[in-house]
């Protein structure tokens, strides 16, 4: 064990901290993600060597995932796809002048999520990897389906919400229907002349930033220029109204969401955004007082942020114990090993014990650094909302455009996507459709289709969805419970509305 200590020096910790800082900046700029940060810095690992390289990359990973909360809360733009559910409660809080408080809740939740997942990774990686391969196409489809049920419970009007969700799924299916996914290799759902642009469908991030960020700006612009939140009651100083008391009674939520995040991260091929969506759904379904969620409840932030930071440890589980990356960022991280000529696979941990411990130390340290960097910087960051909007919005639009252009290494159509979905996001809110279900449909639709089709292709019968394994049965029960819950809640609130109107 003491051998490990000799591998750690000041540079190691400085690099992890630097990674955390740069990662936070990447995460906080709409359109730039943790994945991008890791990709940009990957070639540096050549010069740095494996241990130092890993410290930097893991710092970037943790920082990048965490940084996404900042624009999500303050500007209603998810900085990374996995912070989408953070906007649901974060932005309403920021509008009420509680941006700083919201961010502090997020940071604490992130730290705990990150640490819980690191502990799980350290103690149970091989066992969990064994468990994760029990999830075949069928179980993965059911997980996605479970996450999709959140659409029903978060809609203001269930029918409209479900319609919006279906619309989102439809949008996600535009593009080439790849042969590997069970398709015919041709493009679909588009006009022929669009083929050169929509070959790979709409890119996720420009869609996200467009529909949240640009649409929000358009809606605000419609109201005319006002001078920011001036005149509103903004709570600054003394933690902005934050105290750890917010977490009282939220421990179950925190731990549950962290485990959900770790778990989803661990399943290869189930994207990171499913983690926070799933955690959010479960909090909404299981909590006793979920009626405020979506209107600015800290519990929503806790669920979302602890889950998306827990992804980091989770996604490393299959990477280090199967050689299979758990999400898009770890898929790039694997490059750090191959560039050094180290193969990751089922024997990685036993054969590279030093590297394994070094990674664990870097991961935990990066989480702690992220916490201190953000917790103390928040009171400055939160003041972004004080910047007059006629200065702030053009800057955000510029950043969004740069981010959209950069996300796929310079595709101009991604900038058009941003604009199209910005306008679309504005219009659908005008006609009364709901944005959140639509975007969740968009994020999860593609995966749902792939796993559904592959399940049928593999097993040839619909009944397999019910009979595949005990895990499938459990997932069906969760889905049924989630749907039942949404229906009851829907009926209750309708009865309440009727009662109010009749009085």
């Amino acid at each position, binding site marked *: 064990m003491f051998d490990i200590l000799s591998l750690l020096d000041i540079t190691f910790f400085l690099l992890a901290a630097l990674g955390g800082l740069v990662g936070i900046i990447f995460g906080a700029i709409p359109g730039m993600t943790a994945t991008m940060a890791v990709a940009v810095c990957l*070639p540096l690992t*050549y010069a740095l060597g494996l241990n130092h390289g890993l410290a930097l990359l893991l710092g970037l990973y943790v920082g990048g995932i965490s940084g996404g909360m900042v624009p999500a809360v303050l500007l209603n733009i998810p900085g990374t796809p996995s912070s989408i559910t953070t906007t649901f409660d974060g932005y309403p809080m920021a509008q009420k002048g509680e941006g700083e408080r919201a961010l502090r809740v997020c940071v604490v939740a992130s730290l705990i999520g990150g640490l819980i997942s690191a502990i799980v990774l350290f103690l149970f990686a091989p066992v969990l990897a064994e468990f994760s391969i029990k999830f075949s196409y069928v179980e993965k489809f059911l997980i996605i389906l479970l996450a999709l049920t959140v659409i029903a419970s978060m809609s203001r009007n269930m029918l409209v919400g479900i319609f919006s969700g279906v619309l989102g799924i439809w949008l996600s299916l535009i593009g080439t229907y790849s042969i590997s996914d069970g398709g015919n290799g*041709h493009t679909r759902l588009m006009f022929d002349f669009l083929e050169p642009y929509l070959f790979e469908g709409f890119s996720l991030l420009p869609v996200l930033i467009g529909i949240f960020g640009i649409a929000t700006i358009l809606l605000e612009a419609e109201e005319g220029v006002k001078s920011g939140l001036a005149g509103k009651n903004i709570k600054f100083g003394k933690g902005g109204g934050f105290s750890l008391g917010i977490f009282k009674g939220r421990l179950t939520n925190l731990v549950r969401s962290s485990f959900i995040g770790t778990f989803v991260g661990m399943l290869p091929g189930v994207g990171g955004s499913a983690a926070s969506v799933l955690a959010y759904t479960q909090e909404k379904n299981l909590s006793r007082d979920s009626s405020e969620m979506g209107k600015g409840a800290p519990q929503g932030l806790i669920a979302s942020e602890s889950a998306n930071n827990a992804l980091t440890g989770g996604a490393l589980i299959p990477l280090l114990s*199967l050689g299979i*990356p758990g999400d898009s960022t770890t*898929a790039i991280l694997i490059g750090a090993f191959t560039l050094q*000529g180290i193969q990751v696979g089922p024997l990685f941990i036993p054969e590279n014990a030093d590297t394994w411990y070094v990674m664990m130390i870097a991961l935990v340290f990066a989480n702690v650094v992220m916490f201190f960097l953000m917790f103390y910087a928040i009171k400055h960051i939160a003041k972004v909302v004080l910047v007059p909007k006629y200065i702030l919005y053009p800057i955000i639009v510029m950043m969004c455009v740069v981010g959209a252009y950069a996300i796929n290494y310079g595709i101009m159509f991604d900038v058009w996507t941003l604009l199209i979905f910005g306008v679309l996001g504005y219009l659908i809110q005008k006609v009364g459709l709901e944005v959140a279900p639509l975007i969740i449909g968009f994020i999860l639709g593609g995966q749902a289709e792939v796993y559904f089709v592959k399940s049928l292709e593999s097993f040839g019968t619909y009944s397999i969805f019910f009979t595949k394994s005990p895990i499938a049965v459990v997932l069906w029960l969760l889905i049924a419970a989630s749907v039942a819950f949404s229906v009851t809640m829907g009926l209750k609130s309708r009865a309440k509305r009727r009662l109010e109107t009749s009085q």
Partner: protein
Amino acid sequence: MSMPSIYKTLGTSVLMAGMAFGSTAALAADGPLRGNVRVVIGSTSTGGDTYQNSNIVVDALAEHLDLNMKVDAVGASSAFRFLDRDPRGNTLMIFHDQSYLGYLYGVEGYEDIFDKYTIGPTIAINPGNAYLVPKDSPYQTLDDVIEAVGNGEEVRVAIQPGGVSEIGFSALKNAIAIEHPGMEDNLVAVNTGSQADKNQQLFDDQADMINGTVQANEQYTRLPEDDQKAMRFLWLTARNSTIEQAPEDGLGKTTREQLLQYVEPNVSVPMGNGDDFTFDKEFFFLYNKDMDPAIVDQIDQALTEIYAEGEIQETQKNSFFIPNFKPSEEAAEYLETKMSVYEDIITNIQ
């Protein structure tokens, strides 16, 4: 917060973003290739062999030519598009046999590279293309598989359709059609995507054999037999002479000697013309057709010098690549012949 300090904060963040984005402008070097050179690759993975090998070569080139060069993992369709629109030579591409196999298999987005682009030099081979079965599989050799299929048994093979992962499968199917005419349809392709998906098919018992690589699957072959994840190599598609050049220690804990058991002539997949089928996954440059021929020469020249120094071969071998430098003209001719062989196989089984 006062206004000036807001500007300061904003200024700092913009500056930081700029730094994160920024690349230092390279000094113009002598020769036709100048400015920043972006080398796009046909894979989106930075953990894969294309990225790894391209990095080794591009780093050496950048140093030799004193240019700023960077590998970008943009994926096949984007890479072709980027290459199409830059005749200046500031965008180059590195890819492997997938570039013409995709065309032969009729995958959308692939065109005849020999017609549309200038073929640059080959740089290395990844000898790792492999086929594996579960460790407790009844098939001990590839011959067992051919026999079983010939006897009417269905054997399911997980592959990624439309290229490198499928070509060995096609050759096997072709061999069965030759030895057991009419029985080849019992060899069934299970179409999947990533290596993880292919492995998963084996764990779930949804496939009897999978396409994989020595690099990604070697550790799985060293697991004990009672482990659900344990696998066994049946066949490496590389030429015997290619594996011969691998380092003696092989990869991981599997030696070159052990790997040689799985290549021809120990494993035989006849093509019908007296030869056995082999497939070496080769990496090479692709250029925009309208690019200045002087740049083609410049890169050829530079790589000739780099390979003459002999250092790059060591780096490549350490990462389990087999160096295989051929200057542009030779490479184009060689690859075109290679394509015609595989074209025959693919037409045969259609």
